[in-house]
């Protein structure tokens, strides 16, 4: 749970003291600079949407945990400028989807959204369900770099309209990896490689391709 601890350390300084050994507390800023890099170099913009994906356990304890999470999100959504919704997928996983609101800079948005995810993750961890958290997923969209240009770039236009980048943070390996689905079966490995090459200097990425498991039918 290092990532969320690191994130939390940044937000609540009093817990930072007790977790001094995990002093790698730059993760949230790394995420912000990662989003800046993606925007600048690949024309990928944080879509203001990210989610926590959690395996559902039947029973009251888990239900209470989720209620606590929504309680926290309800009281903090004004201050941190976001909305959220809950979704259950066909694999019986619960998605807590955070939608950031417009702010002057994109870095502020991703920082707030990540903070909301980190506090949610922390509540789940406090209740002893940390093993149920599968991943945190950040969505990026291609924006049209050649918007004002009359030149029609053969690949880019069709590409930008269809594809999203999902930056998946694997909760068990503490690493990020890219996932760009083309459809339900195929993925754009070549673009994913570009993302990896750009991000590996700013965030901890999964360099073992065999662990880049897709998450199909992401509900946002």
């Amino acid at each position, binding site marked *: 749970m290092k990532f969320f601890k690191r994130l939390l350390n940044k937000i609540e300084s009093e817990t930072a003291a007790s977790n001094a050994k995990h002093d790698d507390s730059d993760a949230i800023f790394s995420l912000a600079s990662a989003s800046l890099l993606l925007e600048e170099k690949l024309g990928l913009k944080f879509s203001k949407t990210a989610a926590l994906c959690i395996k559902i356990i039947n029973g009251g304890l888990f239900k209470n945990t989720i209620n606590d999470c929504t309680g926290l999100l309800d009281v903090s959504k004004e201050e941190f400028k976001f909305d959220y919704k809950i979704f259950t997928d066909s694999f019986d996983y619960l998605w807590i989807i955070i939608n950031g609101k417009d702010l002057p800079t994109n870095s502020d948005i991703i920082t707030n959204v990540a903070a909301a995810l980190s506090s949610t993750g922390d509540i789940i961890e406090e209740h002893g369900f940390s093993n149920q958290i599968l991943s945190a997923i950040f969505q990026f969209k291609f924006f049209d770099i050649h918007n004002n240009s009359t030149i029609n770039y053969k690949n880019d236009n069709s590409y930008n309209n269809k594809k999203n980048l999902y930056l998946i943070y694997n909760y068990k390996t503490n690493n990020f990896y890219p996932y760009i689905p083309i459809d339900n079966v195929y993925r754009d490995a070549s673009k994913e490689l570009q993302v990896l*090459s750009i991000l590996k200097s700013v965030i901890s990425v999964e360099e073992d391709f065999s662990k880049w498991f897709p998450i199909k039918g992401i509900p946002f």
Partner: protein
Amino acid sequence: MEHSWQKRDTGITVRIIICLSILTLLYVIFITVLAYLGLGFIPIMLISATFILAQWFFSDKIVLWSTHAKIVTSHQYPSLHSLVERIVSRTNMPMPKIAVAVNRIPNAFATGKGPGSSVVAVTTGLLEILDTDELEGVLAHELTHIKNRDVMVITLASLFSTIAWQIMQFGFYGSLYSGGSRDRNNGSAFLIVILVAFATWLLSFFIIRAISRYREYSADRGAAQMTGKPAKLANALMKISGTMNRVPTRDLRQVEGYNAFFIIPAISRSTFANLFSTHPSVEKRIERLLDMEASMH
């Protein structure tokens, strides 16, 4: 499911290496026999020079013959030709001949004495699995080998090792003749000659492999510069080596149940294996290409 083309290929490389090694071995044996028969320094040098020149001159024919690659015209493979034409016209190189080998295993190689008379060969398996951008990357890699005159570099490197070996050999024979005790020491002296020759050959074997690995990196680099798309070549390398096969298609939520997959260690090849290989590991090449990609943006 694993297709034959996804397996790590060694077929073509092994065939080329075996052919050239047998030639080298024959040559070494022949010269050793001549030297042992007491032929003079000058005639032996002339004979070896002829051998090396012949091997260099016919290297492309030997390579094409051993891989069953056939020269094809622009009518047979128009898109392949135009792809190569576009690269060579951008880099101001003469157009090489193009050969295709009917082989399911994806591979490509370049051969020839210099930019003027060279051949770029691809297998049908390569044409099947790569898209245009990836194929362009692979072709640019082979064209960089031609541009850098890598065949000549390796031939020259082998030439130096051969000369070193012969000087050593003659040194031994020289002291042998002047010693005047030829008959008595004959057997053991011959053994020493063979051993030293073997040691020299072995050392040059590793050195040539080190040079070759370095040439591979610079060909990757050249290809990335020619095409401007290092990630595409990295992608092609992933496909050719079967690394692409390792990018999973099963959903994370499906595999999550089997917790075991997290502890499978990445397969690492030993440094011993690396010493023997003429190509750096695909992982290292991909890593370098991706670093280039990152620095380009």
